[in-house]
């Protein structure tokens, strides 16, 4: 994994200096050295994290006659197979990297080559002959890619801080995007939290040529049409295992050690158990908490005992969360509604210290196979309207929210009370997500009067009012991929916090061939009888994963939220950041309401999710403002000249 940055269509004396400054801001993504390409119009920069072809493989990389150049952040896992085919067709390689297959495939197929790639990637390709560039992003948004236009120049980077290295790019927070984050947990691409900064959407590429407006093209999306309704569980299991085993196997391709995150849940256990088929000396890592409410230790131990695993846990305290929170915001470049990214950031540091650079991790399983409570909640909410007297409803409610040890959220009376009556429009494809969005959107109540007057919940929600294919479950899955997964789990809780310590995460459940298979399956193989989630995965893992884990109810990864900041002794900055003056000066929130929220936490009054989300959301927004809008110059890094690996003058190459 790496960092990339650069610009297209820029003629200026300071091109080289700006390029160096841009790439220096993402040195944490690529600590192993820099590579540069400059010609009259284009600057491409790469910060390398060496994973494949350690001795060579410096980017930017070119084709045989140096007319096609690429910088690339990610991995093409099927590069071995692609290379074989390309060499048979006469292409000449000069490195052993996965990167180089991109330029040769492009020579053969043009931009349609993206369909051949199995991987996670942010690619910028410069076709000198045609004078065209492409910014490509993988199908799920694993790797980030941002861009902005200024006076006909397109600037791009892995992280927004590289774009801000250019002092002519303004740094202001988009308050409409703020409302999106406070509803959907993330911003719908191409918008971002910053005005004027765009994100290449997942499954898309941007085509750019001088004096033309960038054109966004979607090359891949989920397709729930032509489902195989007659496939049996046994047949589906066979097909799933064939693809999943290959997905894990090719994600072990690396010239550096590969480990795995192990939470104790089914998804990470499935990955580790499958890794054991292809890999000796499995090394795994996990987080534990001082606060028992969030611990999954016992289940981790069940798998560790069943396989020969060398496992390390990091114990996360309230102090750890509070001390690291501002740094986390600097890496996520976004407000957050949860502190969950923070322990993941600290965990990545531990992984690095242990000598590992790559980890396999379980994101994507719940989206593909119907794992989340939200999917089953959707079924029950629909039944409350269409068949309220069904005898199945009560036991289905009872199967939800297993993390709630006090059993409040699954109180049948409370569930019926909240979800009967005004339940939302069943015909809307986003019906499944209304409860979550309603709860999260509570944070918008803390905005200033002026910002609140511009906020219209129904209008924000209508962003996702699209006709979708497939069943109601498929609609919910689609939304989950495009909201929580791509805009939060893979970014703030994934790429950003892993890259903070130069760790590359790899996601076997986000192999598009696995996802495409799952998208064609009937609902019943994902959720059976409204209670048995991820049925197919459980069947596939029988005999590989201990039954205690197979039988365990879904427990989402959570970490202590608002209370961390009031149980920790390292919290003095919190009161400065949330002071009346700071709130007023930043201009996003109502200082009286924020003050009441802080008061409520200080008094230790019992708090709900929405209080937690509001607190973390407000605090992270204030920090984002301080770090990026007000004080960004303080954090600018210089490029380490001793780490320049290659520096190519494209006009002479």
């Amino acid at each position, binding site marked *: 994994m790496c960092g990339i940055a650069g610009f297209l269509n820029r003629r200026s004396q300071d091109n080289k200096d700006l390029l160096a400054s841009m790439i220096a801001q993402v040195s944490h993504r690529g600590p192993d050295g820099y590579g540069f390409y400059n010609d009259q119009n284009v600057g491409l920069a790469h910060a390398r994290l060496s994973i494949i072809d350690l001795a060579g493989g410096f980017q930017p990389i070119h084709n045989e006659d140096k007319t096609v150049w690429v910088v690339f952040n990610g991995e093409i896992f099927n590069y071995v197979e692609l290379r074989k085919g390309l060499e048979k067709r006469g292409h000449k390689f000069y490195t052993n990297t996965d990167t180089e297959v991109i330029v040769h495939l492009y020579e053969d197929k043009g931009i349609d080559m993206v369909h051949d790639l199995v991987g996670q990637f942010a690619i910028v390709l410069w076709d000198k002959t045609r004078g065209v560039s492409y910014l490509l992003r993988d199908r799920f948004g694993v790797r980030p890619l941002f861009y902005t236009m200024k006076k006909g120049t397109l600037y791009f980077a892995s992280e927004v801080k590289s774009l801000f290295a250019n002092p002519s790019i303004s740094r202001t927070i988009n308050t409409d995007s703020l409302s999106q984050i406070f509803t959907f947990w993330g911003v719908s691409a191409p918008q971002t939290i910053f005005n004027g900064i765009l994100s290449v959407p997942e499954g898309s590429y941007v085509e750019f040529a001088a004096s033309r407006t960038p054109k966004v093209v979607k090359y891949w999306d989920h397709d729930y049409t032509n489902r195989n309704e007659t496939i049996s569980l046994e047949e589906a299991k066979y097909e799933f295992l064939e693809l999943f085993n290959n997905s894990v196997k090719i994600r072990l391709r690396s010239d550096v050690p590969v480990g795995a995150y192990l939470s104790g849940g089914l998804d990470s256990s499935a990955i580790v158990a499958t890794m054991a088929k292809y890999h000796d000396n499995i090394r795994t890592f996990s987080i534990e908490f001082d606060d028992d409410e969030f611990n999954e230790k016992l289940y981790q131990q069940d798998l560790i005992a069943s396989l020969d695993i060398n496992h390390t846990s990091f114990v996360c305290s309230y102090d750890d969360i509070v001390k690291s929170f501002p740094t986390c915001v600097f890496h996520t470049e976004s407000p957050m509604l949860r502190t969950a990214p923070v322990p993941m950031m600290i965990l990545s540091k531990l992984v690095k210290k242990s000598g590992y650079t790559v980890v396999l991790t379980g994101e994507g399983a719940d989206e593909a196979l119907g794992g989340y409570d939200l999917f089953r909640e959707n079924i029950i909410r629909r039944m409350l309207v269409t068949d309220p007297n069904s005898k199945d409803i009560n036991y289905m409610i009872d199967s939800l929210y297993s993390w709630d040890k*006090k*059993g*409040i*959220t699954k*109180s049948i*009376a*409370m*569930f*019926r*009370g*909240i979800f009967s*009556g*005004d339940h939302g429009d069943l015909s809307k494809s986003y019906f499944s997500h209304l409860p979550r969005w*309603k*709860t999260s959107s*509570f944070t918008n*109540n*803390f905005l200033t009067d002026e910002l609140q007057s511009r906020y219209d919940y129904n209008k924000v929600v209508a962003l996702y009012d699209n006709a979708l294919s497939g069943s109601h479950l498929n609609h919910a899955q689609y939304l989950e991929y495009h909201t929580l997964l791509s805009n939060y789990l893979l970014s703030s809780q994934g790429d950003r916090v892993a890259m903070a310590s130069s760790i590359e995460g790899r996601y076997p459940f986000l192999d598009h061939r696995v996802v495409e298979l799952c998208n064609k399956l009937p609902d019943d193989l994902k959720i059976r009888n409204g209670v048995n989630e991820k049925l197919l995965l459980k069947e596939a893992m029988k005999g590989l994963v201990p039954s205690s884990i197979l039988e365990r109810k879904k427990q989402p990864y959570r970490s202590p939220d608002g209370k961390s900041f009031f149980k920790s002794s390292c919290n003095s900055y919190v009161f400065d950041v949330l002071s009346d003056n700071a709130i007023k000066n930043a201009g996003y929130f*109502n200082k*009286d*309401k924020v003050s*009441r*929220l802080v008061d*409520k936490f200080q008094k230790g*009054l*019992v*708090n*709900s*999710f*929405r209080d937690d989300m509001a607190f973390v959301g407000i605090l992270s927004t204030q920090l984002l403002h301080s770090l990026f809008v007000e004080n960004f110059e303080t954090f600018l890094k210089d490029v380490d000249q001793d780490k320049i690996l290659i520096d190519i003058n494209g006009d002479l190459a």
Partner: protein
Amino acid sequence: MTTVNNVKTGIRSYIEEYMLFGGSIDGDDMSLLKSGAVDSLGAVELSTFLSKQFDVKIDISEVSPDNLDTVNLITKFVVGKMLCQAA
């Protein structure tokens, strides 16, 4: 002496101050759950406040819309508890 009105005022003040953060409840028969003023975990928070503020014991099974969905219902629930405990 605690009157029914005192109880009602105390309940409304808590919800407006600590659950609506300065907002206001639109009538004592407004559904707190359906309006989103209170969610399921908020109902637990409310019951904790009620038991501390009015010195009444509330069982988890009593945390339900029948008892907690409107200011009037909560008042009736709490006053009923207080009278039982006094008897």
